[in-house]
């Protein structure tokens, strides 16, 4: 157990240093860097949404709304109020968390598709309000945001997200969420405050979505309400379902695969989205439970594959 943790720790540090060096020496071309950042942001968005949809079983379609909150709050802090990056990110995340609670309390009483449409509605309301606030540029959005997101921040926050959510789902709190997904009534009669845990999972998911939004805003210079339309929520949902509901590693792999697919299809010009859509349908038809199902990919898998290969 201890050895495994040390091994993982060393691997993670090695990965960080390797990529850091590769960026510094230009081994990773700028174009691949853009996609590397997209990948990190997508991982955070997908893993945090998986906590809500995959682990707690609450179909939420407003994730982009929380990203918007994180992006706008952090951008206002750094650009207009001259605050440093880290407090700005955290402030964005906390605001998303609070709004998550405000939205979650009334809507999480709803179930299934009614919840889906209500959260989608909230995402659209956040967007609609941003369009009407002149302080943040209305429809034109905020432009000229300093490019503060670098590899170190990205890596740090991606790890923070993944490990916090992993710890959460492996704790009694996370188990409570999974119990709610599996059988809400039984969970409640076993002493679980279902409303509390649904709202908790929802707002923790919102918190990390806020981080994703803040990192996004400080890499892409410009944020507009249109950036955070429901299509962005769908993108995150696609990654979650593609990776497997309730599999953190699945979400990570899927976020990487979708980013990669998007980058690979760039050369197809106007056929790009058609191919993407086709792949989406084909993947779902042949693998409806997602890449990993509810299982996690662990180091054991690697060894098992090796053993299988040698025998």
């Amino acid at each position, binding site marked *: 157990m201890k050895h495994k943790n040390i091994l993982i720790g060393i691997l993670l540090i090695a990965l960080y240093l390797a990529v850091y060096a590769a960026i510094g020496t230009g081994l990773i071309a700028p174009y691949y860097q853009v996609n590397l950042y997209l990948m990190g942001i997508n991982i955070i968005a997908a893993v945090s949404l998986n906590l809500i949809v995959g682990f707690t079983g609450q179909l939420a379609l407003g994730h982009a709304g929380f990203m918007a909150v994180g992006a706008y709050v952090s951008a206002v802090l750094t650009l207009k109020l001259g605050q440093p990056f880290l407090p700005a990110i955290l402030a964005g995340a906390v605001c998303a968390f609070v709004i998550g609670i405000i939205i979650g309390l009334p809507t999480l009483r709803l179930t299934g598709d009614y919840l889906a449409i209500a959260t989608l509605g909230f995402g659209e309301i956040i967007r609609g309000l941003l369009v009407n606030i002149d302080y943040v540029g209305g429809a*034109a959005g905020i432009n000229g945001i300093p490019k503060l997101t670098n590899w170190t921040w990205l890596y740090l926050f991606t790890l923070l997200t993944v490990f916090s959510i992993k710890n959460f789902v492996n704790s009694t709190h996370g188990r409570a969420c999974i119990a709610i997904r599996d059988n809400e009534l039984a969970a409640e009669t076993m002493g679980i405050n279902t409303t509390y845990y649904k709202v908790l999972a929802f707002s923790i998911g919102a918190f990390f979505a806020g981080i994703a939004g803040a990192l996004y805003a400080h890499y892409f210079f410009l944020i507009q309400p249109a950036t955070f339309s429901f299509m962005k929520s769908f993108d995150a949902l696609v990654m979650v379902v593609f990776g497997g509901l309730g599999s953190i590693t699945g979400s990570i792999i899927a976020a990487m695969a979708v980013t990669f697919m998007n980058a690979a299809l760039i050369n197809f010009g106007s056929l790009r989205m058609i191919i993407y859509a086709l792949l989406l349908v084909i993947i779902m038809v042949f693998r409806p439970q997602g890449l990993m199902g509810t299982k996690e990919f662990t180091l054991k898998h690697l060894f098992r594959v090796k053993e299988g290969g040698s025998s």
Partner: protein
Amino acid sequence: MKTYKWLVVSLIMMLAVSLAATGCGKKETSDTIKVGVNYELSGEVAAYGTTAKDAILLAFDEINAAGGVLGKKIEAVVLDNKSDAAEALNVATKLITQEKVVAHLGPATTGATLNVVPVCTEYKVPLITNSATNPDVTVDPQTKETREYVFRTCFIDPPQAVVAAEFAVNQLGKKKMAVYYDNTNDYSKGLYQVFKEQVIALGGEIVAEEGYVKEDQEFRPTLTKFKQSGAELIYIPGYYEKVAKIISQARELGIDVPFLGADGWDSPDLVEVAGPEALNNTFFTNHYSPQDPSEKVQNFVKAYKERYGSIPASFSATAYDAAYLLADAIKRAGSTDTVAITKALAETKDFDGITGKFSFDEQHNPVKEVSIIEMVNGEQTLKTKITPKQ
């Protein structure tokens, strides 16, 4: 076991896709000049991106057919940015760092263009947009400095709106005006602001103002409101598709005051959708008119119509001009060095384009006359030409 089989299949699939993808991109030969074309080919504003891309490809084919530039052919690398600002940056980075283009055309919208500007600046590659009208595109709003590598072939917002206000107050003699603008579009909002200021400065009055949003089709509720306000003229700084519907619905509601608009109106669809009758007593400011008898314009309109089956809108014209302007700058620079091309672009004098003869001012905006077009029984007629005060 099944999982791994599937994983292998999907990996092979992805590999195939990416191989095919890289296969398309790698046609590096030294006898072509690569130009990046970064436009909205899918997503919300695909219509504008596509018309611009079509016009650019037409222009390049003509240039190549006439022998190319510096003895080389121009090769357009066309990529889609999905109408997403972050994707536009992704695409621009690919074009500049992977494809090594010498210049970057597009994107169509202000937002996406602003996102691309830092990349072009960083790698010192010139960018020409044909339709991003916001002043911030070429001038940094914080430092007030001109962005060295960014140019445009369209007007910025103010001149058109200034001319429109002057025309409305002084020539049409209207005092009470209503404005109906696209609240989700900076171009439209920019025109609205300037128009409002000018009208008030000229002694007019804005009696009603309202925004619509991109997805709107139903304008009757707001128009009904305008009708009550007693407006003598309605200014709609928007795009033809909405404008046509607004005017058509307004006439249906019995609103017979004149309408006034900007270059976004220019499209044959305006007449087709609204009908010639509804459009009588409407005016708009524009770069050019497809009815312009000059040979250059007529040749362009004919070639475009032959190839794509429709009459080019003003965005096609500005995109076409952007392509020719770039070729001209490369010729004048005498090299494909990006900095030399940028320098040549900045020195552009009296470039004779479809949208008029223009030079760049110190903010990289084209200085050209504004035409005011009146719609008469479905035909565009040139009402007057006004040179905006700079």
